[in-house]
């Protein structure tokens, strides 16, 4: 095991995949000579050259489409969008082409395309740099959507995404690139499907993904220490397809559910997970499931207001207490 930062894990996955397969290439704004806004492609330009580490003009929709077209001919592009907010401009190529071409060609054309996007609310970046778009991507048929919560998964999910024959969106997090964690030294792949129990427990399940896994783990620690409540924390990790069976299996054991999402509540991970619980294991529930989520506002600049608009470990802790009546 080696300890590394989230950005270093992403860089390592790029490097290994590019060294292995000459058809893997990376493109995005400032990823080459400048090394990437979050350093995730540092050094690759010098190593692989400008044909494979491409600094693009600021044309999100069309360089995404160029990646999609190259993927349709068997290349394996890794397209970085500088911030998820800018992915709105690439939605046409992502949703109308990448996500649909395999299906609408009756399975005759594959699109092994990877898009990496930092999402989430960072530090006072304002409404146009704080989007969380998971609800949008996970609603698109034909895409796969994954969200690494640790350096280990940032590495393993990118490795799997590059090898996958379907288009994959990887939602990273603006505030997590310097997060440290253990990453095995030998090559491995994190599944693009299925959720993972990151903390076993018996009293309730907290479903989370990406940064909210850290809020959930912090809350679970406090619940155990202060109240003797043992919360199970499940990292959903793959938001599309969502692991219906895995979600239901945990709640069949714990009988209570809490979903934590960084996105606003109307439409999204929370509503989807709770719908799955209703459909799969309603009669196993001892309490109504609860979601903890961002407030339904454009993210404000003011630091206090920004903090108040997104959830945190304290809110998760309080919500778990309410569910258990303690």
């Amino acid at each position, binding site marked *: 095991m080696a300890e590394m930062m989230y950005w270093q894990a992403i860089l390592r996955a790029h490097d290994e995949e590019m060294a292995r397969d*000459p*058809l893997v*290439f990376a493109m995005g704004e400032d990823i080459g000579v400048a090394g990437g806004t979050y350093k995730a492609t540092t050094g690759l330009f010098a190593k692989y050259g400008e*044909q*494979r580490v*491409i600094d*693009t*003009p600021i*044309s999100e*929709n*069309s*360089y*995404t*489409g*160029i*990646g*999609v*077209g*190259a*993927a*349709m*001919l*068997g*290349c394996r592009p890794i397209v970085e969008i500088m911030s998820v907010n800018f992915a709105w401009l690439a939605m*046409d*190529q992502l949703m*109308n*082409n990448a996500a649909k*071409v*395999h*299906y*609408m*060609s*009756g*399975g*005759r*054309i*594959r699109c092994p395309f990877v898009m990496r996007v930092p999402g989430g609310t960072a530090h006072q970046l304002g409404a146009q740099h704080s989007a969380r778009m998971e609800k949008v991507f996970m609603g698109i*048929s*034909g895409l*796969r959507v994954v969200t690494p919560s640790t350096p280990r998964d940032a590495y*393993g999910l990118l*490795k*799997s995404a590059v*090898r*996958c*024959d*379907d288009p994959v969106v990887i939602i990273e997090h603006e505030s997590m690139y310097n997060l440290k964690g253990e990453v095995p030294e030998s090559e*491995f*792949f*994190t*599944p*693009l499907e299925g959720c993972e129990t990151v903390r076993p427990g018996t009293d309730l399940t907290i479903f989370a993904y990406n940064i909210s896994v850290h809020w959930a783990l912090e809350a679970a620690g406090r619940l155990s220490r202060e109240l003797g409540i043992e919360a199970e924390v499940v990292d959903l990790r793959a938001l599309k397809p969502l692991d219906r069976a895995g979600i239901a299996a945990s709640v069949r054991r714990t009988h209570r559910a809490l979903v934590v999402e960084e996105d606003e509540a109307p439409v999204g991970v929370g509503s989807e997970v709770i719908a799955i619980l209703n459909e799969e294991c309603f009669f196993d529930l001892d309490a109504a499931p609860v979601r903890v989520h961002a407030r339904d506002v454009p993210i404000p600049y003011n630091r206090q207001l920004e903090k108040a608009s997104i959830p945190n470990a304290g809110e998760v802790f309080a919500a778990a207490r309410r569910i258990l009546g303690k």
Partner: protein
Amino acid sequence: MDATDQKRLLREMLFARRFEERCAEAYQERQIGGFLHLYPGQEACAIGVLEKARPGHDYVITGYRDHIHAIKSGMDPKAAMAELYGKETGCSRGRGGSMHLFDPTCRFMGGYALVGGPFPLAAGFAKAIQMKGGDEIAICFLGDGANNQGTFHETMNMASLWQLPVLFVCENNLYGIGTAIERATVETSQYLRVAPYKIPASQCDGQDIDVVMSEAEKAVTHVREKRQPYFLELMTYRLRGHSMSDSGAYRSRDEVEQWARRDPISIYRARLEAANILAEEDFQKMDTDIQNEIENEIVRFAMESPEPRVEDLERYVYVDGGPKPWLK
């Protein structure tokens, strides 16, 4: 080009015309659903350009008016018609429809519904060709209206910046649905619009297939040999409505009649007749043979083919049995 090839070309254009007319009938019979955009009037464009490219070797992409581009690229017309009928034997197994014909075996990379959507895809094919090192080129056929999308400008810039081997063919039929070009676009000569991107470009008559072929040959050679983009504008006209639901009220009868006199099939037929390559009876026989083939082989195949199974509805959302490296 010898007489045999000239007659073959005429036959291809006439086949294209009759194929499309038969589609219109099938649409009226409700055998074909959805949107249906037909090609009559523009036959010399796709057929002339691709005659000078290497169908099956070069990668071709276009918009929703895609039947003839697909067939000239090498798609079996039976698979095209079966697709329009929504059948499992269709080129896209009935999942695509008229606007989404695909046949990777002949490198026809698809018809797409979003105006301007194919520009970057074509540049992406060229990027893949460049990485793999072949002598193929990518050819992107779109209309004049598509050039007002951001993807046009974004893609021209990147195609030129990265020297991608892609030929953009603009079939300028003077309208985007019911909006005349001068009501939507300041610079009506489309080939002038790529000048700031330093892409070599030219404009020519799109109704005379000999003219199209001679310009296309230069364009294709440029892209193939120089490994650079090229933009070719073909001046053309559609003789039918934009789609089956178009009344055509926005065009004067006079204008349509004028263009009908420049029908690409009539022009070429007259030339072959004048050169004694083709007699009146030859043309009639050609036409009858084509209509018989369409009726007895192509439409029949489509009619008799099975529907996709409802059990397979969710197939092809993801690749069946795609790699799962985490399982090893």
